[in-house]
């Protein structure tokens, strides 16, 4: 499994490296702005760092789906399916590598944001006042308190939800490849299947009861999303094992 994961990582290593280089460039711009009081540069750096964080995490998941599509609909599928590994291991390695990459990227950008905020606060002091103002406005106008654990939970819930979407998309790609075997229109069929499966997934997620405690509801939704993702993974693995021809 680890060897499969190593090659899955290798397949997406170039784009991850590009993301890392871009992040480093914008981070330097941001820090340069902070240290030399160049607020335009700092603002630009910050804006692009936020874009890197959102699109980076999004793209890592998307690339996982695209790699699976390519692996099932081209001759490079032989590299996977000639090996003495079960379909569950092959798919499991893909999902795990992709899930870990998404979580790691998410964690990396959170740590970077905390670091940048701390540096900015220490160097120019304005950031803290800005955050306090935002906090006060929200307290007064919306009666919402920014609680750190709720923020962390929301971010984690977003990452888990993105992993679930990737698992659903993987299943759509596998179903399409099993039925259409790489024929014309398999991409469109996979997208249509993705919409249907996503609807099904959301219907099942809607069955989770809402509690007064928002955090508890969120934890339950995360747990149910993870369980459903595992169920979807096993169904996808079974389809690959029994029905998929490459």
């Amino acid at each position: 499994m680890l060897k499969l994961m190593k090659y899955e990582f290798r397949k997406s290593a170039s784009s991850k490296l590009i993301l890392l280089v871009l992040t480093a460039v914008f981070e330097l711009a941001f820090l340069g702005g902070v240290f030399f009081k160049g607020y335009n540069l700092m603002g630009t750096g910050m804006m692009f760092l936020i874009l890197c964080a959102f699109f980076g995490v999004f793209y890592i998941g998307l690339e996982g789906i695209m790699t699976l599509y390519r692996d099932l609909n081209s001759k490079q599928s032989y590299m996977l399916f000639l090996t003495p590994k079960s379909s569950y291991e092959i798919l499991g390695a893909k999902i795990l590598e992709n899930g870990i990459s998404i979580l790691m990227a998410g964690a990396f950008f959170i740590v970077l944001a905390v670091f940048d905020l701390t540096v900015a606060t220490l160097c120019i002091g304005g950031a803290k006042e800005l955050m306090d103002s935002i906090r006060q406005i929200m307290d007064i106008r919306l009666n919402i308190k920014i609680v750190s654990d709720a923020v962390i939970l929301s971010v984690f819930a977003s990452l888990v939800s993105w992993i679930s979407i990737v698992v659903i998309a993987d299943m759509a790609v596998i179903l399409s490849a099993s039925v259409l075997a790489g024929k014309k229109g398999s991409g469109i069929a996979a997208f249509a299947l993705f919409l249907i499966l996503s609807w099904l997934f959301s219907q099942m997620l809607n069955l989770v009861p809402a509690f007064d405690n928002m955090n508890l509801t969120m934890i339950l939704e995360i747990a149910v999303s993870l369980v459903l993702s595992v169920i979807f993974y096993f169904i996808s693995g079974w389809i690959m094992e029994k029905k998929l021809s490459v």
Partner: protein
Amino acid sequence: MNDMENVLESIGVTKNYAGKAAVDNVSLKLETGLVYAMLGPNGSGKTTWMKMVAGLVKPGKGEILYKGKAIGKESKKEIAYMSTEPYFYSWMTVADVGRYYQDFFEDFSMEKYHQMLKRMELTEELKTKKLSTGMMAKLKIAVTMARNAKLYLLDEPLNGIDLLARDEIMKSILEVIDPDVTLVISSHLVDELERVADAAIFMKEGKMVRQCMVEELRSSEKKSVVDLYREIYGHGGEELC
């Protein structure tokens, strides 16, 4: 032929693509230690049948048993398949291909791979996406034959290989011959295969139309494999099906 000697059994195997049978009710047995020539024109079902044995394609009907068990994870440990098409990841170099096989196949010998590369005049730093058809064919043979597999399935191994290199390649392929090892080689070059094959399997329009031992064919029917090939696929071939 008793069951103990059969390494592989194909029982009523059928595979349809868009309603058309690519492989149609193929039943055959492969005996351990023999070299089989799998013959037939394009579209006769050779490649699809091999892919089913390799576990890449799932049969619609019937089953394939390797050493008495269904094709799967265990059979893949002992079956080495060389496809006609290139299938390596585009980012790979020749060295990466070797490392990949070493990572996944316990029977892969890096030493043998290096010897094969040297013989095929391939260098490790070459990018697979930049290889010519002939070089790619050589790489596929090198990496497949560097495995110490029990059953080799070579689909058109001489495709794209120039005349001068063919003998060297056939020599490399035949080096694995052993009482424990079975080889199935498909090729359009019937006379080339006749020299090395112990048995021949004739495929036509998805069906297996004949399986015979080469020596028996020569002694009892006074025919060569080439003669039988002409008979089956040339004039009058329709009557045999």
